[in-house]
C-alpha cells in the first residue's frame, strides 16, 4: 500500500467539480482511497480523519489544491495522479473553450446584465457573506444557498437588508420560488394565489408540491433559511417576507412553515399575522399548540394539512373539510388490505422501523408523527437527550436519520443529489433481522438526483435479498410534481411496480402508515 500526495499551487476548483474528480479516481482499480480537495481547515480535518493528511501538506496555502491517493502500488498511484491532472485540465478547458467569456465578479456581471435583480450565491460559506453584502450594496436581492455562514454575518446581512427593503433568503436556503421561477432545489409548480414563507427547505418543497398537485398554485415562496427563526436572528427575514406577502396583490392566502424554533420568535410572527387581512395558515413543527390560542392564524399539524387547508380556502371551501378528509383517510389506512398483507409477510423477529431521510424537515415531521403513534423514536436530530443516537452511523430500535445533517454531508454532495450514502445505509439496515419497515423520502425537482427511481429500485431489490427475513416493508412519499424534470408520476409508478414500495401522497401519510405497520406488528 502506498500513499502519494501533491500540492497544486493556486488552483481553485469548486467542491462539486472536485467531488466528481474524486469519484472518478476512486473508481480506478487498485485505488483504495483518494481525495482531491481545496486546502481549507475543514478539508484538512476530513483528510486527517481518513489518514490522508500528509506531512507534505503542511506548507500548502489557502488557495492550493491538495491531492492524495492511497493505492496498491506506486505505479497505480502515479497513474491516478496523472489522471487527476487530465480530468482537471478537461474541466478547466471545457469552460474556456465552450463558453464565451464569463465575468469573474458581480460588478462585471452587472455590466453585462445591468437590470439583474437577484443574486444566487452558492460559494463556500466563508466567502458567501461577503458576496452577499456586495450584492445588497448594489441594491440586489440575495438568496444564499451556502451553509456555514457565521451567525454574526447572517444577522448583519439581514439587518442591512431590512433597512434597504431587500430579501436575504438564507444562508442555507435550499429553495425558493420567486415570480414563478424555481430557485436552487425547487419544484415546478402551478402559479396561483398562495404565498409561502418558509424557514425550511424541504418543508417549502412539500407544501408547494402538494398545493400544485391538488390543483391550486403558488404566488411566491420565500425561503429564509432555518436559522432565521432562532432567537439570535429573531425572524428578521421571516417577518419581512410576511410583510411583502401581506401587500402583494397576487397573494390571497399565506402559509407559514418552520422547523422547531424559538417560541418568542414564533410569537412575534403570530403577532404580525394579526394585522394581515388574508387567511394565514401556520405549520410550526414541534411548537406548543397553546401558542395559537386567540391567534388569527390557522394552525396545521402537518405540512400536508397546511397545504390542503390553503388549497381548500383558495377554492372557496371551508378548511374543515380537510380535517374530515384526513380523519377518514386514517381510518381507511387502518383496515387496509395492504397493511394486513405487509404485516403477514413479515417474520416474528421483524419489529422495528428505520427512517432514512434526505429532507431535514421531512425527517422532523415524521419524527413528530411517529412519536405519537409508536412512542420512543431514536434519532440524530432529536432534542430529547435519551433518544439522541450516540453514533448516527448505527441505528437502534425505532430510528429516524436525517441524512442531510452535517455529520453526513461534510465533504459530500447533499443526499438529495447523491443517494450513495443512503443506498448503503438502506442495505445496512436491511441486514438487521429486527428491521420490519424502512421509511424514506424522495425529493424531486431541479438540482435533485435525476434518476431517483432507477437507483432506489436497484437498492431495494438488493435489500430484500440481504434481509434475513427475506422481505422488508418499504414505505415512502415522493415530494414533487409531474412537471418536475424527474416526473413524479413516472417515479411513483416505478417504485410501486418494480420494487413494491408503498408510496403515499405525502410525507405525513407515509410516516403514519409506517407507524401503523409497527403498531400492528407489536399488537400481533
Amino acid at each position, binding site marked *: 500500500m502506498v500513499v502519494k500526495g501533491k500540492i497544486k499551487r493556486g488552483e481553485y476548483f469548486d467542491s462539486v467539480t472536485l467531488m466528481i474528480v474524486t469519484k472518478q479516481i476512486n473508481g480506478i482499480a487498485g485505488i483504495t482511497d483518494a481525495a482531491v480537495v481545496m486546502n481549507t481547515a475543514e478539508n484538512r480535518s476530513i483528510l486527517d480523519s481518513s489518514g490522508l493528511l500528509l506531512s507534505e501538506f503542511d506548507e500548502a496555502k489557502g488557495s492550493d489544491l491538495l491531492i492524495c491517493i492511497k493505492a496498491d502500488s506506486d505505479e497505480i498511484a502515479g497513474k491516478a495522479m496523472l489522471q487527476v491532472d487530465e480530468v482537471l485540465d478537461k474541466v478547466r478547458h471545457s469552460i474556456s473553450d465552450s463558453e464565451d467569456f464569463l465575468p469573474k465578479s458581480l460588478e462585471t456581471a452587472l455590466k453585462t446584465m445591468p437590470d439583474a435583480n437577484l443574486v444566487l450565491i452558492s460559494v463556500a460559506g466563508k466567502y458567501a457573506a461577503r458576496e452577499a453584502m456586495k450584492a445588497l450594496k448594489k441594491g440586489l436581492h440575495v438568496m444564499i*444557498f451556502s451553509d456555514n455562514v457565521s451567525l454574526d454575518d447572517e444577522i448583519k446581512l439581514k439587518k442591512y437588508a431590512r433597512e434597504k*427593503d431587500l430579501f436575504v433568503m438564507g444562508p442555507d436556503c435550499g429553495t425558493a420560488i420567486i*415570480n414563478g421561477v424555481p430557485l436552487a432545489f425547487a419544484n415546478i409548480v402551478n402559479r396561483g394565489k398562495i404565498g409561502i414563507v418558509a424557514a425550511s427547505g424541504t418543508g417549502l418543497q412539500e407544501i408547494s408540491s402538494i398545493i400544485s398537485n391538488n390543483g391550486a398554485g403558488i404566488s411566491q415562496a420565500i425561503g429564509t433559511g432555518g436559522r432565521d427563526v432562532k432567537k439570535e436572528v429573531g425572524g428578521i427575514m421571516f417577518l419581512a417576507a410576511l410583510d411583502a406577502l401581506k401587500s402583494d396583490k397576487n397573494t390571497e392566502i399565506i402559509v407559514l412553515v418552520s422547523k422547531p424554533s424559538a417560541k418568542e420568535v414564533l410569537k412575534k410572527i403570530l403577532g404580525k399575522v394579526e394585522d394581515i387581512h388574508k387567511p394565514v395558515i401556520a405549520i410550526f413543527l414541534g411548537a406548543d399548540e397553546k401558542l395559537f390560542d386567540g391567534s388569527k392564524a390557522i394552525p396545521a399539524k402537518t405540512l400536508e394539512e397546511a397545504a390542503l387547508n390553503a388549497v381548500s380556502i383558495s377554492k372557496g371551501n371551508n378548511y374543515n373539510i380537510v380535517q374530515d378528509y384526513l380523519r377518514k383517510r386514517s381510518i381507511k389506512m387502518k383496515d387496509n388490505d395492504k397493511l394486513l398483507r405487509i404485516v403477514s409477510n413479515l417474520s416474528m423477529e421483524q419489529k422495528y422501523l428505520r427512517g432514512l431521510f434526505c429532507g431535514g424537515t421531512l425527517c422532523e415531521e415524521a419524527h413528530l408523527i411517529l412519536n405519537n403513534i409508536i412512542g420512543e423514536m431514536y434519532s440524530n436530530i432529536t432534542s430529547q437527550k435519551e433518544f439522541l443516537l450516540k453514533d448516527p452511523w448505527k441505528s437502534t430500535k425505532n430510528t429516524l436519520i436525517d441524512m442531510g445533517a452535517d455529520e453526513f454531508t461534510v465533504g459530500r454532495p447533499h443526499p438529495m443529489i447523491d443517494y450513495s450514502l443512503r443506498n448503503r445505509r438502506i442495505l445496512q439496515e436491511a441486514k438487521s433481522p429486527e428491521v420490519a419497515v424502512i421509511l424514506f423520502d424522495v425529493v424531486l425537482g*431541479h438540482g435533485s438526483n435525476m434518476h431517483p427511481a432507477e437507483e432506489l429500485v436497484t437498492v431495494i431489490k438488493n435489500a430484500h435479498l440481504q434481509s434475513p427475513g427475506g422481505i422488508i416493508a418499504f414505505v415512502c412519499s415522493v415530494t414533487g410534481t409531474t412537471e418536475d424534470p424527474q416526473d413524479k408520476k413516472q417515479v411513483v409508478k416505478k417504485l410501486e411496480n418494480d420494487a413494491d414500495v408503498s408510496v403515499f401522497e405525502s410525507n405525513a401519510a407515509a410516516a403514519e402508515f409506517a407507524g401503523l405497520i409497527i403498531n400492528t406488528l407489536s399488537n400481533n
Partner: protein
Amino acid sequence: MAKNDLFDKDLKVINIGLTSFKDSLEEVNTDVMQVDWKPPAEIDEKALKIISDNYSYIKKENEKSLKKILNGTPFLVDLDIAIEVIPGMKKNMILHAGPPINWDRMCGPMRGAIIGALIYEGLAKNPEEAEKIAASNEIEYSPCHEHGTVGPMAGIVSPSMPVFVLKNEEYGNHAYCTMNEGLGKVLRYGAFSKEVIEKMRWMESVLYPALKRAVNELGKIDLKNIIAQALHMGDEVHNRNRAATSLFYRQIAPAVIKTNDTDIAVKVLEFINGNDHFFLNLSMPACKVTLDAARNIKGSSVVVAMTRNGTDFGIQLSGTGDQWFVGPAPIPDALFFPGYTKDDANRDIGDSSITETNGLGGFAIAASPAIVQFIGGAAQDALNYTREMYEITEGENNLYQIPSLNFRGTPTGIDVVKVVEKGILPFIDTGVAHKDAGIGQVGAGVLSAPMEPFIKAVQGFAGSLEKKKNKNNYKELS
C-alpha cells in the same frame, strides 16, 4: 428595488457558484448570468475592514490616479548621458531592474550585466576584477524605478550610458531608459563578452549622437500616438513591438538622414530596422513617465510600479509613497527556445512589466493575436485574458484601444484591492533569461504576478489609511 417591486418584474439572476443552478434557470427560460468566481486571497480581517470602511474615499482617490494616468502625454524629447540627466545618479552608482537588492542576492543575469557595465565603464579590466569590485562597497546599487528610470531584463544603467529622455508634457516629469541593444548576446540578459561591450561602445559613439541629432531636429516625438496606432496594428508593446518600431522608424528616418552623414545614417537606420524590439525601450519609459505622475496620491490603491529583479517581485502604490511590497519572483512557465527548458530559466526579471502597470503588454494581449501562441494559440484566450484584467483595474484607457473588443480602452490602473478581493492576478508578457550570466534569452511567454506582494501591499495600504486617520484625530483634538 423594494421587495414588492421585485414581484412585478421578470426575474434576472446573477449566479455565483454552482453552475447547475444556472442550467436549471435556463431550462425555465429565466435570464441568468454565471459568474466565474474565484476565492479572494487570504488577508487579515482588520485590513479588509479598514479598506471597506474607507471605500468611497479610496474610490475617489483612485479616480484621481486614473485621471492622471489617462491625461499623461509621453514624448521623446532628447537623448543624453545617464550621469548628466538621471536624478540622483552618481559616478559609482549602478541602477538595476526591480525592487532594491544587494549583490549577494542578485541573480546570474543581473550580476553578469553589472560585470559588463563595470568593464564598459572602464572600472574593471576583466570579469574577475569586475566581480570583486561589484561585491565590494565601492558600488552603490539602486533600483531604476527610484530614479525615474526603467530598464528591460537586468535593467542595468551605469553612469556613462546614453539614455532616451522622455517628458510627460501634461505634468512636466521626466523618465529615462537606455537604448535597446537588439537580440542575441546582450547586456540586459547578463552577457558581458567582448562583442557585447563593443556593441555598447558603438551605440555610445555612433548611434547615440546620431539619434540625439535627429530627435533634436524633430524637437519631440509623440509616443502616446505611436503606441495607440501600434495597438491597432497588432502590438501590445511589450513582447511585440514590430509595428511601433516601424512607426518610430518612419518618423525618425528623415531626421536621421538630414542630420547625419549618409554612411552613419545607413548604419543607424539599419540597426533600428534590424531590431523589432527597438521600441520596447521607448514604450517602457513612456509608461514610466505616465505612471510617475500618478504617484503620491494618499488614499489611492492604484499600482504605479510592478517590477522584478530576477529574485524578487515588487510593487509600489500611489498611496504609499516609495514603499516597496515584495515577494519571490516566479519562474515563468514559457515557451522555450530549442535546447532549453524550465530548468534553465531564471526567475522573472525586468522593469518591462511597467507596460502592464500602464494597461499594455499582457493587459492588452487581445490587441496582439500574433503572439497568442504564448498562451495556447487560441485567439479567444487572448481576448479572455484582457477581459479578465478589466476586473482588477480602476478604468479603461481613453486612447489605447483594442480593435477586437470593439475598440474598448485597455484595462488601466491596477487596483491592488481588487486583485486581492477577486483573487485575480495581473497577467504579464515576459521574456525569459537563462539563470546563468551571459547565455541570454532562452524563451518567452506569459505569467501571472505572484500574490504575495499584493497581499502585503493591501496590508501596508490599510496601515497607511489608519495612520492618516489617527493623525486627523490628533489634529481635531489639538
